[in-house]
C-alpha cells in the first residue's frame, strides 16, 4: 500500500480509512497510518496496518492477546522501526524518526507494564515530561540563576495543575514507586500528557483497576480529550471502557486489522465475534 502523495492528506485517502468518516471528514487528520508492518525474523507481527485518526478522536485498538496491539504502539513510538509502511503525524512523514523525535513531533504514550521513574517523586515524574517546556541553559542549572528559579517555579505550578486532573496534587512529593497500582497508571498518563502531545497512546490504562476506578478513568480520559483537544488511541481489554468512550474502534487479530468502525458496528461484526470467541462448529 503506497500512497504517492507524501505529507499531503487528500480527503479521499482519508475518508477511506477513517474510523469515523462522518465525524472528522471535514477536519484534517492528525495521525495517518499507511500500511504499517513489521517482521521479527521472518515472522510477521503486524501487517498492513492502515487507519486514520482525527485530531480530537478517542479510538480503541482491541484484539485478542498476542494480536500485535502493543507492537503497533511500539511502531508508532519507533521503539521498533517498521519493516513496511509509514505514518504521518499532522501531515509530517515520520519515516527515519526515532523515539525521541516522534515524541517531540507529538506522540506520547503509556506502557502496559508501567514504566515510571520509581525512585523520583510524583512531581518530578511530571516535570520530566515537561522538560521541553522548561527553559534554562546548563549554566543556569549549574549556578541556579534567576532564570532557573523562575522556570522551575513555573514548571512546579504546571506540574501541580496536571496532577489536579486526577486529584493527585496532594501526593506530589510521594515517591512514584510507592504509589498504588492504579495511581501509577494515572501518573503515567499525566507524564505523557506533560509532553504536550497531539496523539496520546494509552496501553491498557484500566488494567488492574477496580470497576469504580475504571469508570473514573473513563470520565478522566474524556475530560483530557475535551480540555487538551488531542487524539487518544487506547489499547484495552475492558470492553465497558472501550465501548463506553471510544468513538471508533479497530480490531486486530494475528497482526491484521479485521474490522474498523463504530462500537455498534464492531459489536455486531461476525469476524470480530469469531476472533474473540472462536468459530462456531458447523453441525
Amino acid at each position: 500500500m503506497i500512497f504517492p502523495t507524501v505529507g499531503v492528506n487528500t480527503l479521499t485517502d482519508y475518508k477511506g480509512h477513517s474510523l469515523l468518516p462522518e465525524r472528522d471528514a471535514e477536519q484534517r487528520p492528525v495521525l495517518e497510518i499507511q500500511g504499517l508492518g513489521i517482521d521479527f525474523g521472518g515472522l510477521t507481527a503486524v501487517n498492513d496496518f492502515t487507519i486514520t485518526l482525527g485530531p480530537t478522536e478517542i479510538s480503541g485498538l482491541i484484539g485478542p492477546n498476542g494480536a500485535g496491539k502493543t507492537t503497533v504502539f511500539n511502531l508508532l513510538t519507533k521503539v521498533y522501526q517498521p519493516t513496511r509502511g509509514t505514518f504521518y503525524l499532522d501531515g509530517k512523514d515520520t519515516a527515519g524518526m526515532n523515539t525521541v523525535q516522534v515524541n517531540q513531533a507529538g506522540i506520547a504514550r503509556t506502557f502496559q507494564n508501567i514504566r515510571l521513574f520509581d525512585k523520583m517523586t510524583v512531581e518530578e515524574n511530571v516535570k520530566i515530561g515537561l522538560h521541553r517546556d522548561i527553559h534554562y541553559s546548563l549554566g543556569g542549572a549549574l549556578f541556579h540563576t534567576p532564570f532557573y528559579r523562575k522556570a522551575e517555579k513555573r514548571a512546579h505550578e504546571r506540574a501541580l495543575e496536571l496532577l489536579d486532573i486526577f486529584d493527585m496534587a496532594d501526593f506530589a512529593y510521594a515517591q512514584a514507586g510507592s504509589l498504588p497500582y492504579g495511581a501509577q497508571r494515572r501518573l503515567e498518563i499525566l507524564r505523557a500528557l506533560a509532553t504536550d502531545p497531539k496523539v496520546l497512546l494509552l496501553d491498557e490504562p484500566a488494567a488492574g483497576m477496580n470497576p469504580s476506578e475504571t469508570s473514573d478513568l473513563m470520565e478522566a480520559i474524556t475530560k483530557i480529550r475535551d480540555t487538551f483537544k488531542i487524539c487518544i488511541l487506547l489499547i484495552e481489554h475492558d470492553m465497558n471502557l472501550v465501548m463506553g468512550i471510544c468513538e471508533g474502534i479497530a480490531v486486530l487479530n494475528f497482526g491484521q486489522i479485521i474490522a474498523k468502525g463504530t462500537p455498534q458496528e464492531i459489536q455486531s461484526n461476525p469476524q470480530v465475534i469469531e476472533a474473540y470467541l472462536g468459530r462456531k462448529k458447523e453441525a
Partner: protein
Amino acid sequence: MNTLMKMTKSNMNQYKRSALWSYGITIAGFVIVSIMVSAGLISNSLQGQLVPICAYISLAVSLNLVVGISGELSLGHAGFMAIGAFSGVIAATLFQSLPFLWVKLVIAILVGGLFAGVAGVIIGVPVLRLRGDYLAIVTLAFGEIIRNVLNVIYVGLDEKGLQVSTSMDGIHLSEQGSMILNGPMGATGVTKLSTFFAGFLLVMFTLFVVLNLINSKHGRAIMAMRDNRIAAESVGLSATNFKMTAFVTGAILAGMAGALFALNYSTVAPVKFNFNTSIFILVFVVLGGIGNITGSIISAAVLTILPEALRQFSDYRMLTYAIVLIIVMLATNNPQLKALTAAASKQFKAKFSRTRVYKRPQKADEEMGGTK
C-alpha cells in the same frame, strides 16, 4: 492527612536537605580539622593526607555523578585525574613567575579541569554509545591508554618555550631549561602549591556544581535516563546529550581534583593514576552509597584515613582493608544481613530518638487506591 502533609512538606526539599547535609559536613570537617591542626592534635603524616583527602572527596563526588546519578559504571576515573594532574603541573610551571601562590594554583586547577573536560568529550562520544559492562570495560581501556600515553610523554621548558616529545632525546633544552614531565618518572621538581584550604574550596565547588546539577531539569533527565531509558525516550529525552553532560562534568571535576592532588607533591608518576586508583575511588562511591553525595564525602575521608589509621597493624593493614571492604559490602548488601541491620537501627532509633519515626501514610494508599 496530617502525617501525609508532613511527609510531603519534608520531601519537598529532599535535594536541598541532602545538599545542606553535604555542605554542612564539609564545612564542619574543615573547621574541626583546622582547629585540631592549629592545636597540634594531628600527626604530621595525617596532615600530609589532608590535601589528598580533599582531592579524593572531589573525585568521589564527581564519580558519583557518573556512576550514581547517571548510572554508568566508569572504571577510568583516574585517567581524567591524571590528565588534570599533568596539565595542571605544566600550567603551574608555565606561570611560575606570577606573583601569588593561589593565582598559580587556581590557573593550574582550571587548566587541569579544561584538559580533562576535553578528554571527557573525546572519550564520552564513543563510550556513551555502549551500555552496561561494555561501557565499563571501555572506560577501563581509556584509563589505561591515558596512563600508557603519559608514560611516553616528555615535556621540557626553557626560555624559548615548551618542548614536547615522546622520548628524552627529542628534547633539547638550553642551560636554564628544566624538565617538567619525564615519561614514566612523571612530573619531577613540582612546586607544592596546594593547601588544605584550597582543597576545602575545591570540595565546596565540586559539591556546588554536582548538587545544583542534580536539582535541575538536566539532573532529572539524567536520572530518568538511568531509571528507565525507554520511558525517558518516550517523553522525548535524548539519551546521549544528558549522559554526556554528566560524564564531561565528572571529567572536568576529576581533572581539577587531579591538579590539586599533583600540586601537593614534589614528584608525581603516571603509575599513581592506574586502574587501582580508579577502583579506589569507585570503592568510595559504592561504600558511601550509590547516588548518595554525603555518603561519598564521608567514605572518601574515612577510607583515605583508614590505611593510615591501620598503620599499627603494619604488614596486615592492606589485608585488613580488604577484609573490612568485603565485610562491609556483605553487611550492606546481603538481603538477610540488611534486614538484620535495618531492624537493629529501627530499634536503636525507637529507643534513642525523640522524634517520631514516620510510618508510610496508609491513608494515602487508601485514598489513592479507592474512589475519590
